């Protein structure tokens, strides 16, 4: 059924309907008009003379508008209609819909057009978990408008439905009795407006009420501007141009502007269900796209900084200095039935926050922001030692304090069985996964650079570097699995190694925590038969107890994961290996029209011939969208050095000539060129 769904969105407002444009949501069915994590319309069904319609075609014009071409009736074999119907829908503060009915006959025709409307005002969490509502519903007809409302104490949400053409309004919808002349048409403009009424004297003054009615920008013009601002890619290999263009458009759609951001945007995690601020996803995506656009990183840093934890709160798993995991605006967050106001249960975003701040400065030279966020960055660095060292052994680990609704696994591999020993058993808590130590190391090293550059505190910088060196030394001793010669996935609560071979080894390269002497053997694992499928590096190696080629974090290939591993391979000088990983992922993208899925199956490439998509609800996913951009960076070897951008290309042979023009940064705009020379064919993975 997902294949027939049509989704359009602007920020966190989106509409999911069937291919006729109709919405018939049940309690657990994720269709409807959503905004601020609340469903504002759960039924929206068009009939003509009591008959449903049939879709001839659907046109997703842009991510924010769609057009449905329909004929009356639900014909079985062929359609021979004297009328056609066009619904053109665009998202704004709710949505607007131009409904046109065309009469192709030589005679005039009288029609009864009906739109049925209803709303359950479900919270996104309720849609996922099928929970019961606790408030009361009401319906009002006033001033030619149908208003559907929901109230629970002071929490109020409403939907206003109106039409430009006269109609009869009842509590369940709108009815039009119309006459359409021969070879002529009739049209009405329907408006479905979300509303967040506030009680008391400030009826419409509250910020959410305003946000629900804010003036809309010209979205088509905005998208064009966004595309014009991005670097231009010229490449002989057409699929890469397709992926690049797809990523830029999807990234535009994934932009999300928090109420506090004054219209500026950060990357949300995924479309449509994760159109909100996530610490980890927003940071990783900002890192991936830095060479192409820098505004997203700046907004991510400011907005996550504004919401940084300041107190100990077990329900939210909040600590001072901790960067949030996820923010939600719906009823369940509001009444603290879920902890997302915001929820902080995430063990990596805090170190990654410092990593992003440093990387952002290296690209932009914006020392001002580094100074502005000094307090936040120091608090984040402090969190690593003060609050994340749960076992007192000098390693970052996690264990939720909210045992009811908090997250068990607070690393990016967050499914229940992702952290497992070689024998398949699961460790207890706390868990110190290896990549968290890498991020902490990198955060300290980068924090030291920032302390010297912008905070005038060389003593702090010296201290951070000493701590980082010590962490690296201990890590290479304690996490190294002697027998297999790779880094353990984690240390368990007893300090024992969780001894599976996983893609996390690649993140360690990215962070720089791997001793040089160990790098080559780690790379051999990453590109060896157990981890490399031919399309990419599996999350978990073949032969591990939990390995499953279609297990979410225990065998699938994640494009985002691979993009950071490619970056890590470059960091340690393995240019050709980075090109092999990039080639595999970008070749896989061809099978998805340039839009990389969140994950695909870990089957050997020679076995399936095409990448098997892992079924997920969200597409595009932000960090999959960012993947082709980061791979372009790693293939071209783009690296800011002082005020210059160094280019050191190592491209797959299949790429041919590649030019990336007008790369923005502290140097103004510069171009990068390269020609494919790395033979990636012999690395197509095991048969």
């Amino acid at each position: 059924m997902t294949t027939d769904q049509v989704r359009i969105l602007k920020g966190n407002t989106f509409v999911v309907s069937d291919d006729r444009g109709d919405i018939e949501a049940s309690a657990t069915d994720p269709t409807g008009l959503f905004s601020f994590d609340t469903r504002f319309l759960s039924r929206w069904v068009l009939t003509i003379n009591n008959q449903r319609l049939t879709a001839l075609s659907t046109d997703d014009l842009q991510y924010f508008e769609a057009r449905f071409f329909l004929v009356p009736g639900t014909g079985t074999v062929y359609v021979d209609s004297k009328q056609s119907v066009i619904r053109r829908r665009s998202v704004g503060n709710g949505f607007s819909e131009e409904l046109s009915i065309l009469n192709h006959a030589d005679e005039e025709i009288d029609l009864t057009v009906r739109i049925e409307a209803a709303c359950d005002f479900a919270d996104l969490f309720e849609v996922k978990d099928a929970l019961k509502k606790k408030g009361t519903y009401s319906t009002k007809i006033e001033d030619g408008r149908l208003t559907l409302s929901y109230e629970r104490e002071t929490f109020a949400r409403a939907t206003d439905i109106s039409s430009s053409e006269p109609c009869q309004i009842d509590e369940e919808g709108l009815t039009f009795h119309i006459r359409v002349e021969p070879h002529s048409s009739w049209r009405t403009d329907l408006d479905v407006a979300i509303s967040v009424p506030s009680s008391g004297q400030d009826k419409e003054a509250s910020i959410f009420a305003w946000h629900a009615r804010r003036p809309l920008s010209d979205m088509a013009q905005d998208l064009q501007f966004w595309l014009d601002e991005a670097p231009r890619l010229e490449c002989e290999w057409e699929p890469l141009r397709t992926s690049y263009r797809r990523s830029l458009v999807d990234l535009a759609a994934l932009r999300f502007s928090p109420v506090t951001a004054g219209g500026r945007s950060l990357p949300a995690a995924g479309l449509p269900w994760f159109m909100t601020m996530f610490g980890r996803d927003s940071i990783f995506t900002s890192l991936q796209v830095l060479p192409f656009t820098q505004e997203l990183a700046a907004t991510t840093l400011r907005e996550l900084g504004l919401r940084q934890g300041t107190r100990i709160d077990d329900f939210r798993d909040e600590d001072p200095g901790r960067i949030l995991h996820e923010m939600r605006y719906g009823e369940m967050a509001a009444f603290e039935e879920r902890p997302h106001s915001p929820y902080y249960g995430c063990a990596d975003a805090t170190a990654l926050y410092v990593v992003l701040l440093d990387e952002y400065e290296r690209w932009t030279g914006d020392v001002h922001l580094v100074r502005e966020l000094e307090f936040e960055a120091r608090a984040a660095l402090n969190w690593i030692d003060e609050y994340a060292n749960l076992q007192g052994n000098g390693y970052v680990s996690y264990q939720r304090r909210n045992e009811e609704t908090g997250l068990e696994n607070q690393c990016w591999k967050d499914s229940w069985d992702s952290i497992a020993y070689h024998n398949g058993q699961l460790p207890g808590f706390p868990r110190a996964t290896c990549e968290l130590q890498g991020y902490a190391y990198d955060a300290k090293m980068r924090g030291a650079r920032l302390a010297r550059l912008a905070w005038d505190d060389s003593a702090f910088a010296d201290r951070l570097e000493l701590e980082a060196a010590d962490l690296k030394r201990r890590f290479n001793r304690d996490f190294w699995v002697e027998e297999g010669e790779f880094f353990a996935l984690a240390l368990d609560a007893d300090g024992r190694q969780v001894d599976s071979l996983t893609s996390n080894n690649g993140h360690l390269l990215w962070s720089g925590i791997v001793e040089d002497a160990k790098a080559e053997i780690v790379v051999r694992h990453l590109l060896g038969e157990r981890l490399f499928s031919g399309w990419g590096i599996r999350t978990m190696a073949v032969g591990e107890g939990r390995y499953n080629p279609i297990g979410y974090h225990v065998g699938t290939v994640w494009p985002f994961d691979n993009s950071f591993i490619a970056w890590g391979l470059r960091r340690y000088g393995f240019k050709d290996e980075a090109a092999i990983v990039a080639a595999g992922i970008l070749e896989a993208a061809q099978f998805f029209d340039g839009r990389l899925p969140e994950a695909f199956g870990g089957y050997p490439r020679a076995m399936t011939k095409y990448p098997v998509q892992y079924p997920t609800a969200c597409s595009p996913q932000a960090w999959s969208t960012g993947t082709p951009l980061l791979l372009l960076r790693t293939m071209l070897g783009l690296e800011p050095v002082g005020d210059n951008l160094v280019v050191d290309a190592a491209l797959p042979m299949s790429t041919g000539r590649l030019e990336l023009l007008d790369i923005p940064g502290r140097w103004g705009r510069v171009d990068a060129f390269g020609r494919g020379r790395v033979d990636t064919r012999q690395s197509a993975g095991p048969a």
Partner: protein
Amino acid sequence: MADTISEFFQELAEQRRQPLLGRVRGTVRFDLVESQDAADQWLIAIDHGDVTVAHADGSADCVIRADKAFFELLIKGEQNALAAVLRGTIVCSGDIELLFAIQRIFPGPPGLRQTQGAARGSQ
């Protein structure tokens, strides 16, 4: 009840410097509603972490309106400001960034240890 609130603002005035508000510049007014048409008003001016407090009316960049009894729970850490905004228990008008900023100085839930990490792990 009024005493707790007065004490809170008085302490804020005496501390002057709030590191958690170091990035913030602007004015916030709390309208603490006692009855239908009476509100206790506190005006806070923040200039990059330096805070001044007036027990007075006046225009502000951000106005935060809540029942007085509810506000008392907030400053004791028994309620969370951001969840309350989502719920409509607190109504904010003007620059909401200032609300996100100033709620950082409210305490966490009472009765929880204020350090964890190594201290907790070595129990």
